[in-house]
């Protein structure tokens, strides 16, 4: 085996929301197997915004805004189960802490960030101030960090905190437009975002603060996820999933589903959970 080629576990997919459906496209290496794209879940009456994946139980989680709620279903088939249905108005981003067995979400009307167990119990508001248009949210379970974006046109920002909401800090506030998409690349320990206002994709090291541009000229990014050397984002103008080579800093491929309508959240469904220990297990 070549030392520069890392064998990939079989069966990694991208999951994305489009008009009442959660679709998937398999990844072969880092390439999208476009011909094999199909719907995982059909929810014709819903408007699905955020999508997240729990690699432990192989479940997809999503937020929905027509009858505002959070639901989950097994990606191996199975009926959707509603886990949050009350006291929620406009849930957008959702993220899973697969080690802590919790989920986090943003609500853009209540302007807050909440956490709950994966069955919806033990629910708690962790951030409820200084939020205007919170959208993307992601977790970094091995390091115990939470990241989210707020596209407030007056003062867009990307923030971080511990996973209980403590130690909240603004990471990025300059030269941001509409930071709709956010992802964390565990390999490089980089926090990366896709901005529909500046039309750029950028990364920074959360601890060191150095910031660099991956590429510019994006059209209208909404959701974002990463896998290996690639970023994948959904684009509202192109109605497509676009893959970007992180290191080459350019678009490597794109997939436009047959149906032409907006794509929302996107998540990577790993065949196996990424390596990493629970921060609580070592502390």
């Amino acid at each position: 085996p070549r030392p520069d080629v890392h064998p990939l576990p079989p069966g990694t997919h991208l999951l994305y929301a489009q008009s009442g459906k959660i679709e998937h496209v398999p990844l072969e290496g880092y390439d999208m197997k476009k011909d094999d794209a199909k719907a995982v879940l059909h929810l014709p009456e819903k408007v699905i915004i955020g999508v997240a994946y729990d690699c432990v139980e192989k479940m997809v989680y999503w937020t929905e805004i027509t009858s505002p709620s959070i639901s989950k279903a097994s990606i191996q088939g199975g009926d959707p189960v509603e886990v949050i249905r009350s006291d929620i108005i406009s849930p957008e981003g959702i993220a899973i802490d697969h080690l802590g067995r919790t989920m986090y979400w943003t609500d853009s009307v209540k302007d807050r960030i909440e956490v709950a167990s994966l069955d919806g119990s033990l629910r708690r508001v962790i951030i409820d101030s200084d939020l205007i248009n919170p959208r993307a949210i992601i977790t970094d379970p091995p390091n115990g960090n939470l990241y989210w974006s707020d596209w407030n046109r007056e003062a867009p920002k990307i923030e971080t905190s511990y996973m209980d909401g403590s130690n909240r800090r603004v990471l990025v506030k300059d030269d941001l437009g509409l930071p709709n998409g956010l992802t964390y690349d565990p390999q490089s320990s980089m926090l990366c975002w896709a901005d529909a206002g500046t039309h750029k994709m950028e990364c920074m090291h959360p601890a060191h603060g150095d910031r660099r541009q991956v590429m510019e000229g994006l059209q209208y990014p909404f959701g974002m996820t990463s896998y290996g050397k690639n970023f994948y984002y959904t684009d509202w103008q192109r109605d497509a999933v676009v893959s970007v080579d992180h290191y080459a800093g350019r678009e490597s491929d794109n997939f436009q589903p047959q149906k032409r309508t907006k794509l929302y959240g996107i998540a990577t469904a790993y065949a196996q959970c990424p390596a990493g220990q629970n921060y609580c297990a070592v502390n």
Partner: protein
Amino acid sequence: DATQGTSGDCEPCPCPAGATCAVVPKTREVVCTNCPTGTTGKRCELCDDGFFGEPLVQSGAARACRACKCSDNIDPNAVGNCNRETGECLKCIYNTDGFFCDRCKKGFYGNALATNPTDKCKPCSCSPLGTVDRQTSCSQVTGQCQCLPNVAERDCSACQPGFFNLQSGNGCERCNCNPIGSTN
């Protein structure tokens, strides 16, 4: 069910032209899978997010899907801007409110339909000492707060001429100056 061997095995999809359909295995329910652009739903009867209408309603009342009509007081980067059927605006910005984001929200006044966002809706900022029950809302058009007796100004922040003691919180009192010893 194509396995029965009768001429009625396959039925046309109950979907608008061009759409395909599928049968949900468990419930045997037929669902359209490829609705025309801008529409969604089991029968393609709903509009996509950001649009409203009732594209499939029979009897001539059908309304094609149109972009949310919210007086330019919504943000195109937001999701769920209006109700997909009625068009009711759900995410008014610039401190506007109402079915079409066409008026100022409580506690603000001005012209929600002004072109420039800064000219739209301004906070009432009623002076608590001069306002009845310390209300925070005002006339949506003029911005006039509801003043206590003998209190003046749009925001009830001053006494009328010849009156004093706004600080009392009960309105202003007459000065009662002796006309002989006063300058005017």
